[in-house]
């Protein structure tokens, strides 16, 4: 590529019409893309009848959660946002301190530039949020969105202001808090009435957070020299990889009743979350195992020769390299999990996709062929989540890839 700036006409000639074949490809591609864009725009802004989504927005977001209890969901959201902000703040501060120690301080950015970066990073989610707010008929969603954003920002600022020692203690917070505070917030209803997008997010987030450490332990167990531990790990991994997820979902809901007294079991949402967690952990374990194998033998030999004991060698030398090598595969698995949570429809939960399917049967909309509107809306919700995950993984990869060989 030439370094001199090209005029637009030259650029077009160079890149799109260099020769006959290029020109033909360009024209065909342009026609196809143009047609798709035109049809999409015509549908979204012209023919589509979004009333079906508008009238059912609450159903799409929270399912059939009782109206006068919905503050509980809002409270959980705010708590989650605050914790996420807090963790980000602590991590960012740590990274800054490390960068200063490395003589490469990250200069603080002007506020407007930071907003711009956040916009570039999360634009699909922000656009979606805006669409949701514009579709809303009341002002409540605006208040909720505002409160969640404020909670995240406050958490972030507090996290950034904490002295380092306190910050480390706070790592435990996202693990402890759900068990202590959330049951209080969810009240007597528990989780089982959750629905819509919030149910999808709940299932996906909790399983994602929980399956990673479990998968890691299974992967390490599979490489262990203790036969009992290795056997157990292999057994768990191979069993859960070999069973269809649908079967696990059904099993978690009805099957367990055959083995355990009903009252002794946790709620349905908790059970199905455990099913998603273990299923994904089995795949995560195999991905991590691949990562461990990708670390050259010389790395462990060098660490051993230096006298590093096995656990430290694993934590400080092998795992960082192994995980960096498998970030794309791990995130792919997480995205699968995110989409697979839709399977809860078979045990009667009203997740986003079930809502999309149900609303077109409502008396007001029945027989009007509105499934496109409803499904496009549900698909957009999923796409935003999956795309954001994928973008974030690329960011992490780039950051960890600094100076790699």
């Amino acid at each position, binding site marked *: 590529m030439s370094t001199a700036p090209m005029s637009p006409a030259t650029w077009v000639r160079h890149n799109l019409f260099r020769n006959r074949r290029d020109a033909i490809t360009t024209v065909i591609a342009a026609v196809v893309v143009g047609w798709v864009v035109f049809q999409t725009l015509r549908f979204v802004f012209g023919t589509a009848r979004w009333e079906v989504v508008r009238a059912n927005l609450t159903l799409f977001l929270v399912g059939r959660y009782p109206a006068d209890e919905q503050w509980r969901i809002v409270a959980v959201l705010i708590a989650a946002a605050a914790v996420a902000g807090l963790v980000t703040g602590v991590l960012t501060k740590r990274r800054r301190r490390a960068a200063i120690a*490395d*003589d*490469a301080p990250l200069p603080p950015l002007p506020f407007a530039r930071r907003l711009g970066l956040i916009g570039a990073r999360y634009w699909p989610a922000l656009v979606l949020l805006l669409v949701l707010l514009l579709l809303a008929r009341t002002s409540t969603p605006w208040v909720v969105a505002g409160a969640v954003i404020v909670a995240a920002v406050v958490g972030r600022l507090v996290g950034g202001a904490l002295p380092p020692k306190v910050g480390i203690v706070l790592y435990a917070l996202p693990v402890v808090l759900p068990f202590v505070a959330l049951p209080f917030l969810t009240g007597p209803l528990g989780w089982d009435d959750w629905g819509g997008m919030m149910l999808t997010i709940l299932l996906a987030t909790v399983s994602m957070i929980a399956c990673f450490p479990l998968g890691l332990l299974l992967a390490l167990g599979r490489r262990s020299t203790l036969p009992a531990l290795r056997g157990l790990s292999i057994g768990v991994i191979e069993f859960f990889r070999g069973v269809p997820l649908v079967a696990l979902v059904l099993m978690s809901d009805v099957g367990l009743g055959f083995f355990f007294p009903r009252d002794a079991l946790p709620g349905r949402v908790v059970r199905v979350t455990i099913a998603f967690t273990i299923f994904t952990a089995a795949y995560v374990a195999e991905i991590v195992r691949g990562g461990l194998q990708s670390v*050259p033998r*010389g*790395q462990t*030999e*060098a*660490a*051993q*020769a*230096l*006298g*590093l*004991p096995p656990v*430290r060698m694993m934590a*400080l*030398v092998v795992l*960082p*390299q192994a995980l*960096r090598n498998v970030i794309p595969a791990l995130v792919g698995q997480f995205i699968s999990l995110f989409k697979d949570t839709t399977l809860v429809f078979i045990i009667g939960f009203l997740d986003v996709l079930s809502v999309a399917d149900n609303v077109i049967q409502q008396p007001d909309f029945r027989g009007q062929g509105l499934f496109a509107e409803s499904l496009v809306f549900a698909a957009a919700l999923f796409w935003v989540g999956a795309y954001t995950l994928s973008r974030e993984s690329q960011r992490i990869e780039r950051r*960890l890839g*600094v*100076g*790699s*060989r």
Partner: protein
Amino acid sequence: MTEPADARDEGSEGAVFADATVVGGSGDVMIEVFGVDKFFGDFQALKGIDLSVGRQEVIVVIGPSGSGKSTLIRCINRLEKHDHGSIVVDGVELSDDIRAIQAIRRETGMVFQSFNLFPHLTVLDNITLAPRQVRKMPRQEAEALAMELLARVRIPEQARKHPGQLSGGQQQRVAIARALAMQPKVMLFDEPTSALDPEMINEVLDVMKELAREGMTMIVVTHEMGFAREVADRVVFMAEGQIVEVGTPEHFFTRPAEERTKLFLSQIL
């Protein structure tokens, strides 16, 4: 036992220590390898190796590819487990006891042909990792030590870079600094310059020569005979898992005794 001074004097005159258990260097024994066998399945890689290395002695090990040179020095810090015989390093015998293994590894630095730096850590972190984790040295102290070592291997300006950003010669010097950061009593080198471009070999050899002159006990697998001539107290020639001939560098240059040695030397010189 031979008097230390005699060993040195005889050495410079080119005497043969046909017996590898005679100690050179400053006299007392640092490494004692006795009757060591090593099998990989049915294949015997080491056959009854006897070798004593004196404190501050520099041993160069030569021999054709596959003769067991790497296996020998890897047995000394337990990267390979020997099947028979005994290995004693600075009074500690290698056994299955993990504490003995750790004690010996703490005292033994190793430099590999392929550097094996940790690619995800900066040069500084590569060097401070073991002192901080194993010796529990405070961060500041470990970094000061690391900077001192980097100055010694003549690349203090590379401290904040990652290994992937350095040349091969620079990486190998970092690897030497990393091993030295544990303040070992023994350094093992496994063909440290074989993976380097010719123009980088000398920068690494110079660092090693300096280390030898400062009195480090070293076992160096290398075919750099210039290096052997300059700093080695004894050269060990291995073939097919056995020590064939031991002597001063002068001996190997002037009048090697064994046919196999002559053949090998004619190939590498």
